[in-house]
Protein backbone atom coordinates (compact mmCIF):
# COMPACT_ATOMS: atom_id res chain seq x y z
CA UNK A 1 0.00 0.00 0.00
CA UNK A 2 1.34 3.45 -0.90
CA UNK A 3 1.62 6.05 1.84
CA UNK A 4 2.73 9.67 1.81
CA UNK A 5 4.17 10.94 5.07
CA UNK A 6 6.03 14.10 5.96
CA UNK A 7 8.85 13.27 8.36
CA UNK A 8 10.98 16.02 9.89
CA UNK A 9 9.92 18.41 7.15
CA UNK A 10 10.54 16.12 4.17
CA UNK A 11 7.73 14.39 2.32
CA UNK A 12 8.19 10.72 1.48
CA UNK A 13 6.00 8.47 -0.64
CA UNK A 14 6.54 4.75 -0.17
CA UNK A 15 5.02 1.34 -0.74
CA UNK A 16 4.65 -0.45 2.63
CA UNK A 17 3.09 -3.67 3.90
CA UNK A 18 0.06 -2.88 6.12
CA UNK A 19 1.73 -4.71 9.02
CA UNK A 20 4.74 -2.37 9.00
CA UNK A 21 4.97 -0.47 12.29
CA UNK A 22 5.60 3.25 12.09
CA UNK A 23 8.85 2.85 14.02
CA UNK A 24 10.05 0.20 11.55
CA UNK A 25 9.24 2.47 8.65
CA UNK A 26 11.12 5.37 10.26
CA UNK A 27 14.19 3.34 11.12
CA UNK A 28 14.47 0.78 8.36
CA UNK A 29 13.08 2.64 5.36
CA UNK A 30 13.94 6.24 6.12
CA UNK A 31 17.05 5.59 8.22
CA UNK A 32 15.72 7.68 11.12
CA UNK A 33 17.52 5.52 13.66
CA UNK A 34 17.45 8.27 16.29
CA UNK A 35 14.05 6.84 17.22
CA UNK A 36 14.70 3.59 19.09
CA UNK A 37 12.70 0.53 20.10
CA UNK A 38 13.01 -0.35 23.76
CA UNK A 39 10.33 -2.93 24.48
CA UNK A 40 7.85 -5.23 22.82
CA UNK A 41 4.92 -4.22 24.97
CA UNK A 42 4.37 -0.48 24.31
CA UNK A 43 5.37 0.28 27.90
CA UNK A 44 8.68 2.04 27.62
CA UNK A 45 8.05 5.05 25.40
CA UNK A 46 11.56 5.05 23.89
CA UNK A 47 10.01 5.10 20.40
CA UNK A 48 7.93 8.25 21.06
CA UNK A 49 7.54 10.58 18.07
CA UNK A 50 5.02 13.30 17.28
CA UNK A 51 2.21 12.45 14.87
CA UNK A 52 0.42 15.58 13.69
CA UNK A 53 1.80 17.41 16.71
CA UNK A 54 0.93 14.86 19.42
CA UNK A 55 3.20 12.31 21.05
CA UNK A 56 2.60 8.65 20.15
CA UNK A 57 4.46 5.42 20.71
CA UNK A 58 5.56 4.62 17.16
CA UNK A 59 5.72 0.89 17.95
CA UNK A 60 1.95 0.97 18.46
CA UNK A 61 1.02 2.80 15.27
CA UNK A 62 0.97 1.23 11.82
CA UNK A 63 2.82 3.10 9.09
CA UNK A 64 -0.39 3.04 7.03
CA UNK A 65 -2.17 4.92 9.82
CA UNK A 66 0.33 7.76 9.36
CA UNK A 67 -0.63 8.18 5.70
CA UNK A 68 -1.17 11.88 5.03
CA UNK A 69 0.26 12.88 8.41
CA UNK A 70 3.22 14.86 9.65
CA UNK A 71 5.77 13.07 11.84
CA UNK A 72 8.50 14.69 13.91
CA UNK A 73 11.29 12.55 15.30
CA UNK A 74 14.20 13.39 17.58
CA UNK A 75 16.24 13.91 14.41
CA UNK A 76 14.01 16.77 13.33
CA UNK A 77 14.45 18.95 16.42
CA UNK A 78 17.82 20.65 15.98
CA UNK A 79 17.96 23.76 13.79
CA UNK A 80 21.09 24.86 11.93
CA UNK A 81 23.28 22.79 14.22
CA UNK A 82 21.61 24.23 17.34
CA UNK A 83 20.00 21.80 19.74
CA UNK A 84 16.30 22.22 20.58
CA UNK A 85 15.99 23.84 24.04
CA UNK A 86 14.79 20.55 25.52
CA UNK A 87 17.77 18.69 24.03
CA UNK A 88 20.04 21.40 25.40
CA UNK A 89 18.44 21.15 28.85
CA UNK A 90 18.94 17.35 28.92
CA UNK A 91 22.61 17.93 28.05
CA UNK A 92 23.09 20.69 30.61
CA UNK A 93 21.37 18.78 33.42
CA UNK A 94 23.06 15.43 32.76
CA UNK A 95 19.58 13.99 32.21
CA UNK A 96 20.86 10.79 30.66
CA UNK A 97 22.99 7.92 31.75
CA UNK A 98 22.91 5.17 29.08
CA UNK A 99 20.85 7.46 26.85
CA UNK A 100 18.52 4.85 25.39
CA UNK A 101 15.33 6.41 26.76
CA UNK A 102 16.46 9.93 25.83
CA UNK A 103 14.88 10.30 22.36
CA UNK A 104 11.48 9.29 23.71
CA UNK A 105 11.89 11.32 26.91
CA UNK A 106 12.70 14.45 24.93
CA UNK A 107 9.81 13.98 22.48
CA UNK A 108 7.37 13.43 25.35
CA UNK A 109 8.81 16.37 27.32
CA UNK A 110 8.17 18.65 24.33
CA UNK A 111 4.59 17.37 24.12
CA UNK A 112 4.14 18.04 27.84
CA UNK A 113 5.52 21.58 27.57
CA UNK A 114 3.18 22.31 24.68
CA UNK A 115 0.26 21.48 27.02
CA UNK A 116 1.69 23.08 30.14
CA UNK A 117 4.44 25.62 29.60
CA UNK A 118 5.55 25.70 33.25
CA UNK A 119 4.73 22.38 34.91
CA UNK A 120 5.28 21.67 38.59
CA UNK A 121 7.52 18.74 39.45
CA UNK A 122 4.57 16.38 39.95
CA UNK A 123 3.09 17.40 36.60
CA UNK A 124 6.39 16.60 34.91
CA UNK A 125 6.46 13.19 36.55
CA UNK A 126 2.90 12.47 35.41
CA UNK A 127 3.58 13.90 31.96
CA UNK A 128 6.43 11.46 31.35
CA UNK A 129 4.77 8.47 33.05
CA UNK A 130 4.68 6.63 29.73
CA UNK A 131 8.46 6.74 29.44
CA UNK A 132 10.71 4.42 31.39
CA UNK A 133 14.37 5.01 32.26
CA UNK A 134 16.07 1.72 33.14
CA UNK A 135 18.97 3.66 34.67
CA UNK A 136 16.33 5.27 36.93
CA UNK A 137 17.80 8.68 36.25
CA UNK A 138 14.49 10.43 36.71
CA UNK A 139 15.70 13.18 39.04
CA UNK A 140 17.80 14.90 36.42
CA UNK A 141 15.25 14.23 33.69
CA UNK A 142 12.59 16.04 35.70
CA UNK A 143 15.08 18.82 36.43
CA UNK A 144 15.89 19.13 32.73
CA UNK A 145 12.25 19.39 31.71
CA UNK A 146 11.61 22.15 34.23
CA UNK A 147 14.82 23.90 33.20
CA UNK A 148 13.75 23.72 29.55
CA UNK A 149 10.36 25.16 30.48
CA UNK A 150 12.07 28.22 31.88
CA UNK A 151 14.26 28.55 28.80
CA UNK A 152 11.41 28.32 26.35
CA UNK A 153 8.64 30.69 25.57
CA UNK A 154 5.15 29.12 25.51
CA UNK A 155 4.22 27.34 22.31
CA UNK A 156 7.11 24.93 21.95
CA UNK A 157 4.88 22.29 20.41
CA UNK A 158 3.74 21.67 16.86
CA UNK A 159 4.36 25.26 15.71
CA UNK A 160 8.00 25.22 16.69
CA UNK A 161 8.48 21.94 14.85
CA UNK A 162 7.04 23.07 11.55
CA UNK A 163 9.83 23.31 9.02
CA UNK A 164 9.25 25.53 6.04
CA UNK A 165 10.50 24.22 2.70
CA UNK A 166 12.85 27.19 2.48
CA UNK A 167 14.72 26.23 5.62
CA UNK A 168 15.08 22.62 4.48
CA UNK A 169 16.83 23.73 1.28
CA UNK A 170 17.66 20.86 -1.04
CA UNK A 171 16.07 18.28 1.25
CA UNK A 172 12.60 19.59 0.56
CA UNK A 173 10.27 17.89 -1.88
CA UNK A 174 9.01 14.39 -2.37
CA UNK A 175 11.47 11.57 -1.91
CA UNK A 176 10.72 8.14 -3.23
CA UNK A 177 12.54 5.21 -1.76
Amino acid at each position, binding site marked *: MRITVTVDGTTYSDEVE*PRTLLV*QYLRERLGKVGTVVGCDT*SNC*GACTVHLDGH*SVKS*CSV*LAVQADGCEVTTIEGLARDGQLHPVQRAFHDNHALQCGFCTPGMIMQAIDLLAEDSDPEEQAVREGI*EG*NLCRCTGYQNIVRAVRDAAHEMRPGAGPEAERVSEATMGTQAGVHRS
Partner: protein
Amino acid sequence: MIPAEFDYVAPTTVDDAVRALADAGDEAKILAGGQSLIPVLRMRLAAPTKLIDLGKVTELQGVREDGGALVIGAMTTHYDVVRDPLIAEHAKLIGMATSTVADPQVRHRGTFGGSLAHADPAGDLAAPALALDVEMVVHGMDGRRTIPASEFFVDYFTTALRPGELLTEVRVPKYTGWHAHYEKFNRVAQAWSIVGVAAAVQVEGHTITQARVGLTNMSSVPVRASGVERALVGQEATPEAIKAAAQHAVEGTMPVADGNADAAYREHLAKVLTSRAVTAACG
Protein backbone atom coordinates in the same frame (compact mmCIF):
# COMPACT_ATOMS: atom_id res chain seq x y z
CA MET B 1 7.90 -8.48 17.09
CA ILE B 2 6.14 -7.77 13.82
CA PRO B 3 2.46 -8.62 13.33
CA ALA B 4 1.47 -11.46 11.00
CA GLU B 5 0.36 -10.38 7.54
CA PHE B 6 -3.10 -8.90 7.11
CA ASP B 7 -5.08 -6.97 4.53
CA TYR B 8 -5.98 -3.40 5.41
CA VAL B 9 -8.84 -1.12 4.47
CA ALA B 10 -9.58 2.39 5.71
CA PRO B 11 -13.21 3.27 4.93
CA THR B 12 -14.34 6.88 5.35
CA THR B 13 -18.01 6.35 6.31
CA VAL B 14 -19.89 4.13 8.76
CA ASP B 15 -21.80 2.53 5.87
CA ASP B 16 -18.58 1.59 4.10
CA ALA B 17 -17.10 0.27 7.34
CA VAL B 18 -20.16 -1.91 8.00
CA ARG B 19 -20.02 -3.24 4.42
CA ALA B 20 -16.29 -3.94 4.72
CA LEU B 21 -16.93 -5.82 7.97
CA ALA B 22 -19.71 -7.90 6.37
CA ASP B 23 -17.55 -8.71 3.33
CA ALA B 24 -14.54 -9.69 5.41
CA GLY B 25 -16.28 -12.26 7.62
CA ASP B 26 -15.17 -13.69 10.95
CA GLU B 27 -11.45 -13.20 10.58
CA ALA B 28 -11.57 -9.41 10.34
CA LYS B 29 -10.87 -7.04 13.24
CA ILE B 30 -11.84 -3.42 13.69
CA LEU B 31 -8.87 -1.12 14.27
CA ALA B 32 -9.83 1.90 16.38
CA GLY B 33 -6.93 3.63 18.16
CA GLY B 34 -4.95 0.39 18.13
CA GLN B 35 -3.44 0.84 21.59
CA SER B 36 -4.58 -2.61 22.71
CA LEU B 37 -4.94 -4.28 19.32
CA ILE B 38 -1.54 -3.43 17.84
CA PRO B 39 0.42 -4.78 20.85
CA VAL B 40 -1.74 -7.93 20.66
CA LEU B 41 -0.93 -8.29 16.95
CA ARG B 42 2.75 -7.71 17.63
CA MET B 43 2.82 -10.44 20.25
CA ARG B 44 0.90 -12.62 17.76
CA LEU B 45 -1.81 -13.30 20.31
CA ALA B 46 -4.17 -12.61 17.42
CA ALA B 47 -3.69 -12.85 13.68
CA PRO B 48 -6.76 -11.44 11.89
CA THR B 49 -6.69 -11.68 8.10
CA LYS B 50 -8.05 -8.17 7.67
CA LEU B 51 -8.02 -4.92 9.63
CA ILE B 52 -10.76 -2.36 9.07
CA ASP B 53 -9.30 0.94 10.26
CA LEU B 54 -11.88 3.47 11.47
CA GLY B 55 -9.29 6.24 11.72
CA LYS B 56 -10.63 8.04 8.66
CA VAL B 57 -14.33 7.80 9.59
CA THR B 58 -14.59 11.40 10.76
CA GLU B 59 -18.32 11.13 11.60
CA LEU B 60 -17.31 8.91 14.55
CA GLN B 61 -15.12 11.58 16.15
CA GLY B 62 -16.20 14.15 18.69
CA VAL B 63 -18.78 14.86 21.39
CA ARG B 64 -22.14 16.52 20.77
CA GLU B 65 -25.34 17.28 22.65
CA ASP B 66 -28.60 15.61 21.72
CA GLY B 67 -31.37 16.84 24.01
CA GLY B 68 -30.88 15.34 27.45
CA ALA B 69 -27.89 13.28 26.39
CA LEU B 70 -24.31 13.62 25.25
CA VAL B 71 -23.29 11.58 22.24
CA ILE B 72 -19.66 10.49 22.27
CA GLY B 73 -18.41 9.27 18.89
CA ALA B 74 -16.74 5.88 19.21
CA MET B 75 -13.52 7.19 17.63
CA THR B 76 -13.16 10.16 19.99
CA THR B 77 -9.69 9.87 21.52
CA HIS B 78 -9.12 9.76 25.26
CA TYR B 79 -7.18 13.01 24.87
CA ASP B 80 -10.22 14.72 23.34
CA VAL B 81 -12.63 13.26 25.92
CA VAL B 82 -10.49 14.62 28.77
CA ARG B 83 -10.44 18.11 27.24
CA ASP B 84 -14.06 18.24 26.13
CA PRO B 85 -16.12 21.01 27.81
CA LEU B 86 -19.43 19.10 27.38
CA ILE B 87 -17.98 16.06 29.16
CA ALA B 88 -16.63 18.30 31.93
CA GLU B 89 -20.07 19.83 32.42
CA HIS B 90 -22.39 16.85 32.00
CA ALA B 91 -20.33 13.66 32.43
CA LYS B 92 -17.46 14.57 34.73
CA LEU B 93 -17.01 10.95 35.87
CA ILE B 94 -16.13 9.84 32.33
CA GLY B 95 -13.55 12.62 31.97
CA MET B 96 -11.95 11.78 35.31
CA ALA B 97 -11.72 8.04 34.57
CA THR B 98 -10.38 8.70 31.09
CA SER B 99 -7.62 10.93 32.43
CA THR B 100 -6.24 7.89 34.31
CA VAL B 101 -6.06 5.62 31.26
CA ALA B 102 -2.49 4.48 30.53
CA ASP B 103 -0.21 7.44 29.66
CA PRO B 104 -0.30 10.59 27.51
CA GLN B 105 0.94 8.87 24.33
CA VAL B 106 -1.70 6.14 24.59
CA ARG B 107 -4.42 8.72 25.35
CA HIS B 108 -3.52 10.55 22.14
CA ARG B 109 -4.35 7.45 20.07
CA GLY B 110 -6.71 5.30 22.15
CA THR B 111 -10.44 5.84 21.70
CA PHE B 112 -13.52 5.81 23.92
CA GLY B 113 -15.38 3.29 21.75
CA GLY B 114 -12.35 1.13 21.18
CA SER B 115 -11.77 0.79 24.89
CA LEU B 116 -15.40 -0.16 25.60
CA ALA B 117 -15.61 -2.64 22.71
CA HIS B 118 -12.32 -4.25 23.79
CA ALA B 119 -13.98 -4.93 27.18
CA ASP B 120 -10.84 -5.58 29.17
CA PRO B 121 -12.04 -6.15 32.77
CA ALA B 122 -9.18 -3.90 33.96
CA GLY B 123 -10.11 -1.12 31.51
CA ASP B 124 -11.15 2.08 33.25
CA LEU B 125 -14.09 3.21 31.12
CA ALA B 126 -16.56 0.35 31.49
CA ALA B 127 -17.33 0.97 35.18
CA PRO B 128 -18.23 4.64 34.65
CA ALA B 129 -20.25 3.67 31.55
CA LEU B 130 -22.20 1.16 33.62
CA ALA B 131 -22.63 3.47 36.61
CA LEU B 132 -23.99 6.24 34.37
CA ASP B 133 -26.35 3.91 32.47
CA VAL B 134 -25.00 4.84 29.04
CA GLU B 135 -26.36 3.31 25.85
CA MET B 136 -24.19 1.81 23.13
CA VAL B 137 -25.30 2.59 19.59
CA VAL B 138 -24.23 -0.11 17.14
CA HIS B 139 -24.52 -0.41 13.38
CA GLY B 140 -24.65 -3.56 11.27
CA MET B 141 -25.99 -4.66 7.90
CA ASP B 142 -29.45 -4.89 9.50
CA GLY B 143 -29.30 -1.26 10.60
CA ARG B 144 -28.92 0.43 13.95
CA ARG B 145 -29.75 -0.76 17.45
CA THR B 146 -28.93 0.35 20.97
CA ILE B 147 -27.63 -1.78 23.82
CA PRO B 148 -27.81 -0.58 27.44
CA ALA B 149 -24.47 -0.71 29.25
CA SER B 150 -25.99 -3.21 31.70
CA GLU B 151 -26.33 -5.71 28.81
CA PHE B 152 -23.24 -4.75 26.78
CA PHE B 153 -20.48 -6.34 28.86
CA VAL B 154 -20.90 -10.12 28.68
CA ASP B 155 -17.60 -11.64 29.81
CA TYR B 156 -13.81 -11.17 29.60
CA PHE B 157 -13.13 -9.27 26.37
CA THR B 158 -16.66 -10.15 25.23
CA THR B 159 -19.53 -7.78 24.50
CA ALA B 160 -23.07 -8.08 23.16
CA LEU B 161 -21.83 -6.88 19.74
CA ARG B 162 -22.85 -9.48 17.14
CA PRO B 163 -20.61 -10.51 14.26
CA GLY B 164 -20.73 -7.75 11.66
CA GLU B 165 -21.73 -5.06 14.15
CA LEU B 166 -19.78 -1.91 14.87
CA LEU B 167 -19.94 0.31 17.98
CA THR B 168 -20.47 3.80 16.58
CA GLU B 169 -21.67 6.06 19.41
CA VAL B 170 -22.19 6.11 23.14
CA ARG B 171 -25.17 8.04 24.49
CA VAL B 172 -24.61 9.38 28.00
CA PRO B 173 -27.52 10.89 29.94
CA LYS B 174 -26.53 14.30 31.27
CA TYR B 175 -25.39 14.35 34.89
CA THR B 176 -25.17 18.12 35.14
CA GLY B 177 -24.17 19.29 38.60
CA TRP B 178 -23.19 15.83 39.85
CA HIS B 179 -19.94 15.42 41.72
CA ALA B 180 -17.67 12.60 40.65
CA HIS B 181 -14.42 10.81 41.27
CA TYR B 182 -12.58 7.82 39.82
CA GLU B 183 -10.24 6.12 42.26
CA LYS B 184 -7.77 3.72 40.72
CA PHE B 185 -5.30 1.43 42.42
CA ASN B 186 -2.31 0.14 40.49
CA ARG B 187 1.25 -0.77 41.32
CA VAL B 188 3.18 1.50 38.98
CA ALA B 189 2.58 4.40 36.61
CA GLN B 190 0.63 3.52 33.44
CA ALA B 191 -0.29 0.05 34.76
CA TRP B 192 -3.79 -1.40 34.48
CA SER B 193 -6.16 -1.05 37.41
CA ILE B 194 -5.89 -3.78 40.02
CA VAL B 195 -9.22 -2.38 41.21
CA GLY B 196 -10.92 0.89 40.28
CA VAL B 197 -14.04 2.63 41.62
CA ALA B 198 -16.16 5.12 39.70
CA ALA B 199 -18.46 7.24 41.87
CA ALA B 200 -20.92 10.02 41.03
CA VAL B 201 -23.13 11.68 43.65
CA GLN B 202 -25.70 14.42 44.00
CA VAL B 203 -25.37 16.28 47.28
CA GLU B 204 -27.91 18.71 48.70
CA GLY B 205 -26.69 20.54 51.76
CA HIS B 206 -24.71 17.75 53.38
CA THR B 207 -27.04 14.95 52.31
CA ILE B 208 -26.31 12.51 49.51
CA THR B 209 -29.52 12.43 47.45
CA GLN B 210 -28.38 10.23 44.56
CA ALA B 211 -25.41 7.92 44.07
CA ARG B 212 -24.01 5.83 41.24
CA VAL B 213 -21.04 3.56 41.78
CA GLY B 214 -19.29 1.17 39.39
CA LEU B 215 -16.36 -1.16 40.00
CA THR B 216 -13.44 -1.95 37.67
CA ASN B 217 -11.78 -5.38 37.69
CA MET B 218 -13.92 -6.91 40.44
CA SER B 219 -15.37 -9.49 38.04
CA SER B 220 -15.02 -10.49 34.38
CA VAL B 221 -17.28 -7.52 33.64
CA PRO B 222 -17.76 -4.15 35.34
CA VAL B 223 -20.00 -4.34 38.42
CA ARG B 224 -22.63 -1.86 39.55
CA ALA B 225 -22.31 -1.43 43.31
CA SER B 226 -26.06 -1.13 43.90
CA GLY B 227 -25.76 -2.00 47.61
CA VAL B 228 -23.39 0.93 48.12
CA GLU B 229 -25.69 3.25 46.20
CA ARG B 230 -28.72 2.28 48.33
CA ALA B 231 -26.74 2.66 51.53
CA LEU B 232 -25.49 6.13 50.55
CA VAL B 233 -28.76 7.74 49.51
CA GLY B 234 -30.28 9.85 52.31
CA GLN B 235 -27.09 9.77 54.38
CA GLU B 236 -25.11 12.73 55.56
CA ALA B 237 -21.80 12.80 53.68
CA THR B 238 -19.75 11.97 56.79
CA PRO B 239 -16.65 9.72 56.80
CA GLU B 240 -18.48 7.20 59.02
CA ALA B 241 -21.56 6.97 56.81
CA ILE B 242 -19.49 6.67 53.64
CA LYS B 243 -17.25 4.01 55.16
CA ALA B 244 -20.27 2.02 56.33
CA ALA B 245 -21.87 2.19 52.89
CA ALA B 246 -18.61 1.15 51.22
CA GLN B 247 -18.73 -2.20 53.07
CA HIS B 248 -21.40 -3.23 50.52
CA ALA B 249 -18.90 -2.86 47.65
CA VAL B 250 -18.14 -6.59 47.45
CA GLU B 251 -21.77 -7.61 46.89
CA GLY B 252 -22.24 -9.24 43.52
CA THR B 253 -18.53 -9.27 42.70
CA MET B 254 -16.43 -12.28 41.64
CA PRO B 255 -12.84 -11.00 41.79
CA VAL B 256 -10.07 -13.12 40.32
CA ALA B 257 -6.68 -13.91 41.83
CA ASP B 258 -3.71 -13.02 39.66
CA GLY B 259 -0.10 -11.91 39.98
CA ASN B 260 -1.15 -8.53 41.33
CA ALA B 261 -3.66 -9.46 43.99
CA ASP B 262 -5.65 -12.37 45.38
CA ALA B 263 -9.43 -12.23 45.58
CA ALA B 264 -9.55 -11.27 49.26
CA TYR B 265 -7.17 -8.37 48.69
CA ARG B 266 -9.31 -7.16 45.79
CA GLU B 267 -12.36 -7.25 48.07
CA HIS B 268 -10.46 -5.21 50.63
CA LEU B 269 -9.44 -2.73 47.93
CA ALA B 270 -13.01 -2.43 46.63
CA LYS B 271 -14.23 -1.27 50.05
CA VAL B 272 -11.33 1.09 50.70
CA LEU B 273 -11.38 2.61 47.21
CA THR B 274 -15.17 3.00 47.26
CA SER B 275 -14.87 4.93 50.48
CA ARG B 276 -12.12 7.12 49.00
CA ALA B 277 -13.95 7.66 45.71
CA VAL B 278 -17.23 8.67 47.35
CA THR B 279 -15.44 10.88 49.87
CA ALA B 280 -13.52 12.64 47.09
CA ALA B 281 -16.69 13.02 45.02
CA CYS B 282 -18.55 14.58 47.97
CA GLY B 283 -15.59 16.96 48.25
